[in-house]
């Protein structure tokens, strides 16, 4: 009881204690928006055509699939997981649905559903390996990355689907736009909003945050970890599958290498977008903005006549900056806890 005399009332004062850092975090999305605005303004100042209809449309086309996959990846990363197989799953879905369309001429809706189903199956496999096999997500999905890519090569067998084989309507869907906004981007946007509502507004969504924040605590309060993890990986896989259909519709020509290496871009978008790689915090809106920012960087740097090398380096620096910010906040929180929680200081 000696501490009684030394520390009069700190424990009972319960202010919200917002600091500049808290604000920076809370409005991370705002920071990303500002970065986007500055980049766009600077590039447009050098070359006004950067803001032309064609250029903007190109950027939205380029961002659409990354935004879509980043939405799914966010759900997984929030649980302290990661899904490295999304690029391969996208490839599998792209090839299979393109083959389906070229051989049967099935309607677009059926292709979308098929893509979703293929992706969901892959996601279920990931979830099962991780939950039942107790394999760390990084290793499990690294394995399925190769396995699924192997399946694509097996299915394609060196051949490819050409744009001329695909139904006209499908290609129109992939390259069309309404009021200048590509259909593909609209779909990604709709998915992003739906995932945002799921994460923020449903019990299942909040359970995912709880699992990532404190897995042991989640067990103590009776969160059904298996079911929730399964949901996360199936959702992530399904969106990668949907991404495959969009990829086929956009490019028309699909071979076995579709989506190769895409997983790293998606993880980068999520991390830059402020989703903590250790789970528990971040929003799908941030991840979407991160994906958009990466797409804009890719398109802006050539306009600014900046070397390809710098483009990669800038993305790398962004990732490190995002992680450094998370780390800083984590350290600060730990320090604050030690200060408050101790009773012999």
């Amino acid at each position: 009881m000696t501490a009684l005399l030394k520390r009069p009332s700190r424990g009972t004062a319960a202010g919200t204690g917002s600091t500049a850092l808290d604000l920076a975090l809370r409005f991370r999305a705002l920071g990303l928006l500002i970065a986007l605005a500055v980049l766009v303004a600077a590039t447009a100042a050098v070359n006004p055509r950067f803001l032309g209809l064609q250029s903007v449309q190109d950027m939205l086309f380029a961002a659409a699939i990354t935004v879509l996959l980043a939405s799914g990846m966010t759900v997984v990363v929030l649980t302290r997981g990661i899904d490295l197989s999304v690029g391969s799953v996208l490839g599998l879905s792209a090839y299979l649905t393109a083959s389906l369309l070229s051989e049967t001429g099935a309607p677009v809706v059926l292709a979308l559903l098929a893509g979703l189903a293929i992706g969901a199956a892959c996601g279920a496999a990931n979830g099962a390996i991780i939950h039942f096999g107790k394999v760390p997500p990084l290793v499990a999905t690294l394995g399925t990355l190769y396995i699924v890519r192997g399946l694509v090569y097996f299915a394609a067998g060196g051949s490819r689907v050409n744009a001329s084989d695909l139904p006209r309507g499908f290609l129109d869907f992939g390259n069309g736009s309404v009021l200048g906004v590509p259909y593909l981007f609209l779909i990604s946007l709709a998915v992003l909003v739906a995932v945002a509502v799921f994460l923020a507004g449903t019990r299942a969504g909040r359970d995912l945050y709880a699992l990532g924040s404190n897995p042991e605590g989640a067990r103590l309060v009776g969160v059904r970890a298996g079911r929730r993890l399964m949901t996360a990986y199936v959702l992530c896989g399904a969106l990668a599958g949907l991404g495959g259909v969009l990829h086929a519709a956009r490019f028309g020509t699909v071979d076995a290498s579709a989506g190769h290496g895409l997983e790293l871009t998606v993880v980068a978008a999520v991390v830059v977008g402020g989703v903590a790689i250790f789970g528990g915090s971040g929003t799908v809106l941030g991840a979407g903005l991160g994906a958009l920012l990466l797409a804009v960087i890719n398109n802006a740097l050539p306009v600014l006549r900046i070397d390809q090398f710098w483009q990669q380096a800038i993305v790398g620096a962004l990732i490190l900056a995002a992680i450094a910010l998370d780390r800083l906040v984590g350290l600060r929180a730990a320090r604050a806890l030690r200060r408050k929680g101790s009773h012999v200081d």
Partner: protein
Amino acid sequence: MGATEQTGPEAARPIVALTGVAKRFGAVRALSDARLELHAGEAHALVGENGAGKSTLIKILAGLYRPDAGSVEIDGRPVAFAGTAEAKAAGIAVIYQEPALFGDLTVAENLFVGRQPKGRFGLIDRAEMNRRAAALLERLGVRLDPDRPAGGLSIADQQIVEIAGAIALDARVLVMDEPTAALSGVEVERLFGVVRSLRDDGAAVLFISHRFDEVEALCQRVTVMRDGAHVSTDRMDEVTVEQLVRRMVGRELGAMFPKREVEPGETVLEVEGLSRAGICRDVGFTVRAGEIVALAGLVGAGRSEVVQAVFGIEPRDTGTVRVDGRTLPSGSPRAAMRAGVALVPEDRRLQGLLLDLSVMRNATLVRRGRLSRFGFLTGGAERREAAEWTARLSTKYGRLTDPAATLSGGNQQKVVLAKWLAANPRLLIVDEPTRGIDVATKAEVHRLLSELAADGVAILMVSSELLEVLGMADRVLVMREGRIAGELSRAEATEESVMLLATGQEAAA
């Protein structure tokens, strides 16, 4: 609760009744015959030494463990919880020593995980959730913004949030495992105010604490446990603290410890004014050659932290550590090792051994500099050295190349000891040297420590086992809440004198 007649808690049927509960973990018997009855409107204290089985009992109540034998009854009906969710549904809320909140979620979300109020379209109604959370917190008399993240809250506030969560559940049984261990006096008073009002509203409270002043201030009834079994249950006003302490320890110094009398030599270790914010404060002591000094105290008193700061695993804020008169730099285990200090850590699986490496590699790890030629380890020297030391400690293993993980706990501990003894230390620090190992190996470890002391090694031993402390130590330093509460000579040290110092009851003794 309304159904029970108000004829005093004795007459009413207990809400929770545990009888003859037993639980084993492998070869370790955690509970053999635990009994406990909790009544509505009553706070019940559960006391016992470290390892008496209190935590296991709570985890059974919480639905985390299933008992091997015995019955758990709620309102007279036997239950077998398959998980924490079922225990919760039965109205049992457990608040652990370390609050298990979700730092990334808001206070309100923490209160309603899995039970968030739903509004339009089946989505979570945040405004309603925050409103209900605010009402709950207000009922507990605390001012907390329900919409702030739980991450930055003090331990005290986190516990209040957990209690609020228990109330939100309509919990009838509130179990608290040493909730005050990390709280200051003001915070403890606030917590007790909250718990008293819950109790008076008809909840049954199970309170586990090592602080008898708190137990007396809060509880009407007290159960003593020892070695996994029930010892006694009394009304709080019918027993004295001395009686309780005696029942908690209640053993004779039965086992013989092969302690040799050694005339202590020159001072090897001198610690002065050692402090670390939040961990320990102004700790000072000496250890002389040939002497075994024990650091006793309750779990969480800061014993391991002190020896880690001495060895340099953790930096120290202030204070000096001298070995043979030379000051060790803060936070440098390498410097400590060069000065002849060896640390056998508390958790051998986590800190003491590289489980995947061979017995040989583990045994020679700290010596590999001296066993190498031109920077390369030569197999022959390594093997000879490892074989010699493991034989001296009569370690049982298949082959020297087997991974350390394949050995039994006792033999793993011997490998850790061999590793350090091969380095010929001046000062050997052992943290819980015999935890979780069988009786025969225990005696061997004790014999070994005694021999080392006779050879002039200074030994600093952290132990939660009173018998070990009393049987082995020349001097006992008792720690409480990060300070040295007192020093006892071998003659003065008894189970009671150590426990009284450790629990802060020396004034009453």
